[in-house]
């Protein structure tokens, strides 16, 4: 739920990066963190296991600038991708304003993408949201690897509602800001509509 503070003239929105294990959700946040000016960002918090797998969530606040005198701040979260952390994923979707689904383009990860997308739909429903109505972007990550499914085929399988599809190589920053921009735009447009 977008938090608007009229007194301090701030708009705070929550964006969640979702997707199967090792698809690159944390890498997206890490790239945004590394390439943003210090005054625009807070700390990147990672609640991870000893082997650097996300345990609960990653979090970073990002300030984009002002709209009509209101500071716009995006709180970016990732979920843990591994199947058995489902309870945590459900909690992180509470109060979400926009979702990025990060798909792993490698052929052998197709089943994991589909399972995670179904899981996203279910968990959104559990929190009272509908994937068809919420600001949403599909990112096809790891496009630089040799064994990837053609982007058109992947999009045909995973696209749900004509949402923007962004091809990405998150480790090199390709498509990372395009993805963020696409979802942030939808969130602000939604605010205007409401």
């Amino acid at each position, binding site marked *: *739920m977008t*938090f*608007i*503070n*009229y*007194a*301090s003239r701030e708009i*705070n929105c*929550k964006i969640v990066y979702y997707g199967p294990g090792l698809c690159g959700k944390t890498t997206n946040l890490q790239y945004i963190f590394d390439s943003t000016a210090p005054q625009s960002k*807070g*700390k990147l*918090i990672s*609640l991870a296991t000893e082997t650097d797998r996300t345990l*609960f*969530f990653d*979090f970073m*606040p990002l300030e*984009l*600038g002002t*709209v*009509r005198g209101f500071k*716009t701040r995006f*709180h970016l979260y990732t979920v843990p991708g591994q199947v058995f952390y489902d*309870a*945590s994923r*459900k*909690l*992180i979707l*509470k*109060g979400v304003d926009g979702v990025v689904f990060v798909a792993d383009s490698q052929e052998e990860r197709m089943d994991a993408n589909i399972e995670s997308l179904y899981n996203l739909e279910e968990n959104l429903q559990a929190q009272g949201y509908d994937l068809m109505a919420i600001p949403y972007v599909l990112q096809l990550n790891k496009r630089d690897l040799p064994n990837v499914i053609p982007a058109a085929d992947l999009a045909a399988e995973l696209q749900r509602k004509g949402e923007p599809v962004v091809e990405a190589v998150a480790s090199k920053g390709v498509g990372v*800001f395009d993805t963020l*921009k696409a979802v*942030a*735009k939808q969130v*602000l*447009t939604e*605010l*205007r509509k*409401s």
Partner: protein
Amino acid sequence: MHEQQFRQIEAVVAKLRNDASARVVFLVDKDGQQIAVNGDVGNIDTTSLASLAAGNVAATGGMAELIGEKEFPTLSHEGERESIHICVIGRVLLVVIFDDRSSLGLVKLRVKQVTPELHTIFEEVARTTKQATSDESFFAEITDEDIDSLFN
């Protein structure tokens, strides 16, 4: 939330910090957005703290459900020097950070005393927010150019 309500909340938070001899008092919403803060923040990253407090409450709330409880309304973490007490008040969390100048008992007592007042203020916030969404067109005036300008 409007200016006057924000000032009321700030006043309650300031009074609580003083009465509980706490180092810092935060008010955070359940989604991890910071609403108000009072006290010696020092080097504390308040945005991250708000997010982690909300994550903490969400995680223990999930555990509560699993064992058939509605929620755990208070959480306390005691450290060697600094401690944290979190109290769930409706949609918001009151987070009190204190050291050995205070005690958990005193903090709990003072938090309990301000709870009804905060409840009342947030009920009023919810009521005026409903009104605002029906009669304010401020956000309807945001243009595509406004949104694009954020990314330039």
